[in-house]
Every structure is written in C-alpha cells, then in structure tokens.
C-alpha cells in the first residue's frame, strides 16, 4: 500500500505542471458549481475561483512556510509555473486579440493621464499613511509609498533609496495586499463605479496598476474588458519604478528633510 502511495506522490511531483492543469480545472469546476447553485449566478465563477486560489495560497503558505503560496508544497510546484509571470504575460497578451484598436486609440490619452495620476496619487496616499503611522525618514516613507504603487516598485525603490529590510518587507506586503484587494473588490464594486466600457477599463488599469490585480479583477467582472485594463496596467509598474526613486523621492525629501 505504501509503495502505491509513493508512486502517486512521485508522479505528482514529477508531473507538477500537468498536475497544475488538473487542480486548476477542479477549482474552476467547483467555483462554477458554487456560482450557479449557491449564489445563483450573482457572483461570477472566476471571482470565486480567484478567491479560492487565494485561500489555497494561504493554506499553502501556512503548511510550507514559503513565499509562493500553494506552490511551495512539493506536489503543487506546477501551480507556480502555470501562474508564474511568463504564462501570465503570455495569456494577457493573447487577450488583446479581438480588442478594438479604435477603442484603444480613442481612450489612449485618458489612459496615459490615468497612469500618471494613479501613480502620483497612490504615492501621496502611501506617504501620508506611513507618516501617520510614525515614519519620519524620507527613505522609509518613500519605500512604503512605493509599495502602495505595486509590490515590485516597493523593493526596487527601497534598494535605490537605501531603506531598511523591514521597511522593504512592509512595502512588499502593502503591494500584495493591494493586488489582492483589487482582485476581490473590483467585481463587487464594478457596477457602482461604472466599470463596463473599454474606456473605463483603461482608466481602471491606469489608476490601479497592479497587473495581477487588474487582470484578475477584470476577469471576474467582464472578461471582455481584460485587454483594455491590462494594456494600461502593464505600463504602470515600469513608470512607477521610474518615478518613485527619482522625482517622488525628491519631493518627499522636501517635506521631510
């Protein structure tokens, strides 16, 4: 009996990537069932699936104690490959097929405006909140504020301005929580904030920025909107890495000498 069990575990570990398809398929099917039967279609099945994914990530993190959620458990490493940045980008790009070029041209300018405004406003909110929590040195304030931009901008900025590692950790956590909040809150608030046109989706992508949050949030709202939001969101992190350690750090230094 034990040998059979070992064979199975071995198979799962060796074929982690294939295993990932099976697990995600089961999660999707289960979510579909809950969406249709329990919520009577009121909550999009993707939203439920993403939420379940986050719960699995929490369980995985508790069990394995790593930093990559469920995929740190040896038999589930394939989940990390399937959900890693390469395949994420590959599938995001594929969603552009079928998007209307005219819509993007039409909303291009407002998309760019929302990008700049999104980063600067987020940074200001982040700086104010971190000051309210007692941080007074410009490097820490800048790094935490940059974390509110995205969890990549935070550590990049922290390294550039020489922040301490616990501040960098807070900035990463802020960014991850932001992206989780976007995934979960977007489908809930979509109707209220008028998130139903390609233009609104482009503005949304620019204001929020976190590519994972935006793309998952829109997928759970209306998959047709994904390419528009993702298009602007993908420029956000780069622009954030550009602005935070330079112009915005400089501004923080003026206020916190």
């Amino acid at each position: 009996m034990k040998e059979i069990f070992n064979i199975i575990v071995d198979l799962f570990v060796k074929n982690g990537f294939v295993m990932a398809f099976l697990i995600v398929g089961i999660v999707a099917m289960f979510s579909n069932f809950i969406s249709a039967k329990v919520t009577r279609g009121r909550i999009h099945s993707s939203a439920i699936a993403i939420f379940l994914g986050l719960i699995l990530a929490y369980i995985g993190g508790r069990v394995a104690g790593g930093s990559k959620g469920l995929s740190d458990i040896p038999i589930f490493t394939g989940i990390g490959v399937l959900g890693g940045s390469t395949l994420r980008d590959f599938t995001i790009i594929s969603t552009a097929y079928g998007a209307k070029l005219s819509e993007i041209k039409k909303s291009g300018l407002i998309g760019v405006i929302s990008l700049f405004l999104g980063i600067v406003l987020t940074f200001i909110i982040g700086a104010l909140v971190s000051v309210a929590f007692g941080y007074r040195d410009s490097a820490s304030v800048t790094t935490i504020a940059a974390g509110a931009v995205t969890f990549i901008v935070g550590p990049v900025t922290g390294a550039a301005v020489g922040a301490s590692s616990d501040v960098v950790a807070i900035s990463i956590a802020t960014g991850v929580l932001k992206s989780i909040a976007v995934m979960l809150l977007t489908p809930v608030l979509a109707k209220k904030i008028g998130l139903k046109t390609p233009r609104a989706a482009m503005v949304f992508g620019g204001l929020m920025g976190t590519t994972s949050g935006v793309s998952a949030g829109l997928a759970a709202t209306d998959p047709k909107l994904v390419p528009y939001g993702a298009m602007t969101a993908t420029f956000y992190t780069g622009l954030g890495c550009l602005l935070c350690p330079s112009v915005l750090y400089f501004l923080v230094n003026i206020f916190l000498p």
Partner: protein
Amino acid sequence: MIYGVALLAGCMLVGSFLGNVFGLLTGLNSDIGGVGFAMILLLLVTNSRKLNRIIPETYVKGIHFWKEMYIPVTIAMAASQNVVSALSSGFLALVLGLGVVLIMLFLIPLFNKFAPSETESNEMEAEE
C-alpha cells in the same frame, strides 16, 4: 494552430525587447511595458490584411486557446501569492493596501464624468 501560438510568442518577445530597450534608454535596465507593447503589436498584426492573406486562418485557434487559458492561469497565479506574509505583516500594510484600492476605485466615476464614454462626442474628441 501552431501559427497562432508562434505569432503570440513572437509578439511577446518583440514586445519584451522593446520594453527592455525602453528601460535601457530611461536608465532603469528593466522591462518597461513590454507586455503592453506586445499587446499593441498583436492587435496591429492580426488586423493587417496582408498577414491574413499569408497565414492560414486557423492560426486564430492558437490564440483563442491561450485566451481561454487566461482565467485558469489567473487562478494559479492567485494560488501562488504570498498571502500569509501579506496578512501578517501588520496594520499599516493592511490599511494602506485596502485604502488605496478603495480611493482609486471611487475615482473611476470621476474620470467617466470628465470624459463621458459611449457617446458620439468621442469621435470628435479623438480628432481634436
């Protein structure tokens, strides 16, 4: 089908190249908006008549497959986030992470007000 997948791969690599060159020019040495460039590229290529004459129409299947796989990939991505450390790293991260999202979400209607969508006036705005 493989043509579509290959086309997608080509767009991703060229887009990533552009993003990296852009990163080099701005002194960041990382990929800036490579995915965005790749998306625009894919749109331009698939909208061009020439390409549709050269490549058999079935290439679309290869793109559609990955487009459908997008949500499963997103689920897997959610399952590999560092949720534990995010939730346990204190009140500041929680307040800030949630607060920023709520404030930004409620800015979207403002944007829509300033630039109303879905109306004919959009066409005129675009030409200005």
